[in-house]
């Protein structure tokens, strides 16, 4: 899986709302919904060759969705949207870059990422068993407009399906077959001439859940909590990142007991069980030092880190330090593993100083992506140097909550400003940067040194005085030995 978090530019949210909302003078010429079946993360892309711009998501799908993006096909720029929630559907009014002239076509790509959308089935599996997952979605892509043709492709990673639902009561739309399977893809459709479908009438009559039961050969990973603390130090020219991660294997729970012997044999025959996670590969930033990996009871000595050199300034960052992280024990279905991972990076790799305004700008990645895993809860704390003022930050996408507080550490007197952000259900797509700007005065820089020096001086002075004061009642006599 490619890791592209560092190369994703800052995502911008346009705030222009279209006055054309709710218009029904459009028609979907073709809708293709592609569902990339994964473990914890399911990626749904709906390409609509259309003249419309209101996209609908069924209620169940909306609940699973953690990220929604709309684009014009072939363009990078994201389109802004507003969401309206109705009884059975959520409607996203996408603002087109420019109003569409009559009878013209535009292709809109509507992406949404669903998390926790699959369930392991059967719910328990023995060590040598396969891992089966179930994914359920609505048969039709709902739309407030009539659709000429639509199909839904469900792509799995391996061409093995246990079962998939045969849709019923769809003869009115079906041309050749209601559902076909080709290789690793199950295709529902094409269905033709579908009327506007966001109304209760259509949903009741035709919309139905379809379930795909497929094999997945990678462990289903969930980061249940991620606590990231990023501490910026100007004295050390250092930016420290520390992640407290609780990892959970959301695959089928282990039935019976774990056999080391069997696990080893599977390793020998190069046929690892699909729901066992023996190790993880993580891409950390280049040029890091002092990486550490420990858990509640101490250092974990089984990891390997290859540090990539820091790219020269201005160059596109493309290399990553590769960390092969091995939990203390292989992670089987239903097992937890919590650990702490941290590293130092040179400050200049992610900070810039503007001489004119005296502001520092630091980019802080929201998370280090674990391929295929979903981060259920994240708390991100950015700790700025002591005495930082004019703190501002720009978020690539809104956080659930954001607050500025004070964090007191290492010989601080007044504490450091800190930004605490909370997120839910993040995926690789969310691995973007936050930009923080602040100012630090020269006095604030040297304040700590002065404080410590003063404290030490006072101590010595007190010591000196104490040595010279004689508090004894009778004058001290020379010791006789």
């Amino acid at each position, binding site marked *: 899986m490619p890791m592209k978090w560092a190369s994703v530019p800052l995502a911008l949210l346009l705030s222009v709302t279209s006055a054309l909302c709710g218009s029904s003078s459009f028609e979907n010429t073709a809708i293709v919904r592609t569902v990339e079946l994964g473990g914890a993360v399911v990626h749904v892309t709906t390409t609509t060759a259309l003249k419309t711009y209101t996209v609908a998501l069924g209620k169940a799908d909306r609940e699973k969705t953690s990220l929604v993006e709309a684009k014009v096909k072939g363009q990078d720029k994201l389109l802004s949207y507003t969401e309206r929630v109705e009884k059975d559907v959520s409607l996203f009014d996408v603002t087109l870059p420019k109003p569409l002239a009559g009878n013209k076509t535009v292709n809109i790509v509507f992406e949404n990422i669903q998390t926790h959308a699959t369930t392991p089935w059967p719910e328990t599996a023995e060590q040598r068993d396969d891992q089966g997952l179930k994914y359920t979605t609505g048969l039709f892509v709902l739309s407030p407009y009539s659709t000429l043709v639509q199909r839904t492709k469900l792509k799995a990673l391996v061409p093995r399906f246990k079962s998939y639902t045969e849709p019923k009561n769809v003869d009115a739309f079906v041309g050749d077959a209601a559902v076909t399977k080709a290789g690793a893809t199950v295709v529902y459709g094409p269905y033709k001439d579908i009327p506007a479908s966001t109304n209760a009438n259509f949903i009741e009559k035709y919309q139905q859940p379809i379930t795909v039961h497929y094999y997945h050969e990678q462990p289903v990973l969930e980061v249940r909590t991620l606590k990231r603390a990023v501490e910026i130090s100007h004295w050390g020219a250092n930016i420290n990142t520390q992640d407290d991660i609780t990892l959970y294997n959301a695959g089928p729970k282990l039935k019976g*007991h774990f056999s*080391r012997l069997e696990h080893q044999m599977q390793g020998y025959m190069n046929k690892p069980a699909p729901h066992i996670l023996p190790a993880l590969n993580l891409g950390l930033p280049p040029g890091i030092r002092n990486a550490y990996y420990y858990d509640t*009871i101490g*250092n974990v000595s*089984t990891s390997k880190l290859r540090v990539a050199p820091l790219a020269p300034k201005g160059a596109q960052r493309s290399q990553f330090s590769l960390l092969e992280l091995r939990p203390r*024990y292989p992670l089987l279905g239903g097992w937890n593993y919590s650990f702490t991972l941290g590293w130092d990076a040179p400050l200049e790799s992610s900070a810039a100083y503007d001489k004119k305004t005296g502001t520092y700008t630091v980019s802080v990645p929201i998370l280090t992506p674990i391929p295929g895993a979903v981060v259920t809860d994240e708390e991100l704390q950015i700790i700025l140097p002591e005495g930082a003022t004019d703190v501002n930050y720009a978020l690539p996408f809104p956080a659930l909550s954001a607050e500025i507080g004070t964090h007191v550490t290492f010989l601080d007197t007044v504490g450091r400003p800190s930004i605490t952000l909370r997120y839910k259900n993040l995926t690789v797509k969310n691995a973007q940067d936050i930009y923080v700007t602040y100012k630090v005065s020269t006095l604030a820089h040297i304040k700590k040194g002065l404080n410590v020096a003063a404290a030490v001086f006072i101590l010595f002075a007190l010591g000196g005085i104490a040595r010279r004061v004689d508090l004894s009642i009778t004058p001290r006599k020379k010791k006789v030995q």
Partner: protein
Amino acid sequence: MPSLAYPVPTDLSPATVKNTASLFRIVTLALISGAAIASRLFSIINFESVIHEFDPWFNYRATRVLASKGFYEFWNWFDPTAWYPLGRVVGGTVYPGLMATSGVIYYLLQALNLPVDIRNICVLLAPGFSAFTAWATYMFTKEMKDESAGLLAAAFIGIAPGYISRSVAGSYDNEAIAIFLLMFTFYLWIKALKLGSALYGTIAAVFYFYMVAAWGGYVFITNMIPVHALVLIFMGRFSHRLYVAYCSWYAIGTLSSMQVPFVGFQPVSTSEHMGALGVFGLLQLVAFANLVRSHVSSQNFQKLLRIAVVAIGALGASAFVFLTYTGKIAPWTGRFYSLWDTGYAKKYIPIIASVSEHQPTAWPSFFMDLQMLMFLFPAGVILCFRELRDEHLFVIIYAVLSSYFAGVMVRLMLTLTPVVCVSAAIALSSLLDVYLNPVEPDEEQDAVAQPAKSGPADAAPSTASSKSTSSTRGIFGIDTRLVVVFNTLWMLSFFVFHCTYVTSTAYSSPSVVLASQGQDGSQHIIDDFREAYYWLRQNTEEDAVVMSWWDYGYQIAGMADRPTLVDNNTWNNTHIATVGKAMSSSEENAYPILRKHDVEYVLVIFGGLIGYSGDDINKFLWMVRIAQGVWPDEIQESNYFTPRGEYRVDENASKTMKESLMYKMSYYRFADLFGGNQAVDRVRNQHAPKNIELGLPRRGVHVRKLDRPYLPSQERGHARAGSEERERL
């Protein structure tokens, strides 16, 4: 003007000499402290900053409770997870001194906004206190001889393996601070005795209290000081200084020591403390007698008085015996008996005997722990005899007692080490004094005492004047001096090498993490213990009871955070015997025991694959013995041996052995690791059995849970199996 063997600058003012010497002493002490700390950090460098062994894990866990919940919560802490289902009143059954010390340091650092992890404080506490120990030993030895002997003693204690063995970084045990407290209390006692100072006596009492709060070995002080006082009285050296020092120490020390809940009323009710009380009473009598004598000077009266003293002493002793007999005073504990009879524990209290550190010391370990100090030690004691001031008697008594104890129990090597360092320093310093003294003996000038010209000249004149009869004694020429001095230096540097070597190879393994060497000499870390514990911590219910042999109790509580049946605080013999019985019974008999105790997981350590000899099969006989002590009808040790009296695990093992739970759990599917080949147990060098069936996991409602969750051995199994595979190809 005596002739000098080598030129000494004469134009220095005494003040300059004094100040320079004092500066040198401070710098040297600082360097010694640095060396003491640094040599204890091998374990951190080789492994990591981790708590070692077994007991430290409990101390660490208790410290975390103290640091997170505060002192009062800690005081009232009832731990329901230990000794399941009995629980343990922790606050009242620990020596809280160690935890309180780390807690105070932790709070202090927090107050300074220095966020140091409590684990790092615990890990580095012992090295930190070893620096204090070096200083306390310096002060103590300074009172015995002079500063230069003090510096030598400080250097010795700083790096002597006998002390390092219990105070490496991570060895977070009571001894970590106790040796400092021991030496410092002794120093204060000597100081109080020398000056007759109630202030020093009181400070000694305060540090005695700290010691009581920190280590059960405080009983050593409780008996050392009275014995010293008693010997002084018997030698006719009673003085008001002794009276003031002892009474202020005893009264305040005993009252304050009773404030520690774990000690409580023991100082007035147990035999170990009676000596101190008796000497306290005797001192009052002697003082009273002296008072009377100073008023009535009659020889007859004096004789009568002496008789009276002896009579009262005898009366007191017999009253004590009577009270012990009737049970008013608690009888001696088993641990105490085992101090006098090394075979006692094995016969009556197998739990004590099963601990390796309670075994008698082997001869080589004296030389491993103390090296050349071992033969300098008697020389130092003899030098103490030559002067025989009051404080020298203390060293002599200390030397005799601790030599005996160190011979009885390995762990008491620890109390021997300080006195060995002190005596050796006295001996070596006397030697150097003689050979570094630049003054040549003069055959013509007889009667003139030789004044020492240079250096801190406190002790030299006193030794010289005491033997002023022979002024012709001394060393002639520079060559003799050089030979001896270089020889000494060579011995000292060899001692340093020895200490470094022993520390780095023998005493710096955390035992939680094991290191093994690959064939190419590369180091492999075997971290299976923590793997199993962390698995338990992360993937079992929080109240899942884990059964294991008591050795692992503290580690399970500390690392896996799960309830255990028994742990290293071996207070309940029956409970331990229950676990022993479950382990040594057949599955049918063990299962009801496990169910009764809500056991959900059983942890067994098996090292047959990589040759880790400290595994449970090797401890198995102790389990059997302890179980036999309580259920002699059901468990008999002889049933676990072959008819020929061998302890075997292969096909020839006895039927009882083969059916026991421990055996089955250890060898369950072990042979599968070897493919079709003959399975070999590397610890016992025997063929391992095949086709061991474990019935337990497949029975009843606990099919899933009552299981070996993890066998660390199997993990090691792989690594081994892998390399063997390659060898065969």
